[in-house]
């Protein structure tokens, strides 16, 4: 149960952060295009 709580709490911050990183990486590809 405790592990599920840790997973959920990390997901709540990890998903938006991953979204931001992927959005930025999409822009970065222009640098190497």
């Amino acid at each position, binding site marked *: 149960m*405790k592990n599920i*709580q*840790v997973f959920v*709490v*990390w997901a*709540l*911050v*990890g998903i*938006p*952060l991953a*979204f*931001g*990183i992927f*959005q*930025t*990486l999409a*822009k*970065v*590809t*222009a*640098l*190497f*295009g």
Partner: protein
Amino acid sequence: MSWLDRDRTIAPPGFNRWLIPPAALAVHLCIGQAYATSVYKTALVAHFDASLVQIGVIFSIAIVMLGLSAAVMGTWVDTHGPRKAMFFAALFWSGGFLVGSLGIFSNQLWLVYLGYGFIGGIGLGIGYISPVSTLIKWFPDRPGLATGMAIMGFGGGALIASPVSTALLAFYDPNSGVAGWVPSGDSVGKLFLTLAVIYLAYMMFGAFTIKVPAPGWTPAGFDPSKVRAKALVTNNHVSAKNAIRTRQFWSLWVVLFCNVTAGIGILEQAAPMIQDFFRQNDGNSLVSATVAGGFVGLLSLANMGGRFIWSATSDKTGRKNIYMVYLGVGTVLYLLLALFGPSTTTLYVILAFVIISFYGGGFATAPAYLRDLFGTFQVGAIHGRLLTAWSAAGIAGPLIVNSFLDAQGAPGELTAAAYQPALLTMVGLLIVGFIANLFVRPVHSDHHEPDRALVGAVAKEARA
């Protein structure tokens, strides 16, 4: 409001400490929006019929208030605990957006200064320092890793806020499909309202997740005697009042000021700088605006990643050594950038990437360095006072770069040579920082808190 007090947030036995970093991240990811203001800067210029400088003042006020509120409120944050601090940070940060939106809808720029700049800036300062001392107490074995995870959020916040804000502006503005579109003031006002609601909810999630460890708690398998064995890691405690009277505090202030000033010099000018470095004789640059945008994105990743990676590394290398790297290797890299940066874009990008990762690392490693030197007693308050170096660097960095560039020519006509005086000035600053770091020695026992005073302070905390 006693339900927010420190003694109501003590973790029960068996509490998983890995719930604390995401709680801290929730706050830092929100306040990191401060680095994404460029998304609506042009829209505000058009809406208020103001200059870029007048709009830029909004961000400047926010950063100055960040440093001031962190310095003034640091002791309050340490005394009342992270939940109350995060709660009020959420109210200030969200309230800043609400008042700012009122200013936009009523066309009153001063209200945006008051809202986003002044009120929001207080939220920035309190929010920035609120989880720091708690993280250090939960992770005495890996303080660099813990604070790196949280402060990484401040770099990551802009990565989220930037695309989300762009999408929301397009959603709120019916003219978003038109060529050369600049978002309307109305859409920026609605964006502010939306962000106020989202950030309030998200920061409250952080506030109600965070807990402080019970007195005397240590992680399983952690041996404090190993920490004591390191020369620069104290087992004593220094109050915030006494800390600012020490040479160590001001040495660190200079270190942070120099490191941040040098980093801001590149960050603030990132997009035009890479284009200017590769400008041809015909006035055109080899680097397009799109590619320059990608470069800015890459630096954002370096800033964020450096905060986590370098700060976590400092747990192994020691804090003084890692700052030697930030400042010493940083000096060499800046010099290479100034002298050989224009030769190839690959070299330029690699050098700038590492330099900005050091900039982020400098921010994230500072709380752990303070903990090593001054103990955990009022490390949040001391960190707050140290952040005035950031405010000062936020003014000095752009001022140095822009002053040199203004003297060299007009924007759009500059070349790599125009940047050399500014970059060499940054080299000098990094050398000053390197020397200041050399002066960091263990704090003299005269500044240590007598145990009785410490116990009294802790008891007062518990009664508050």
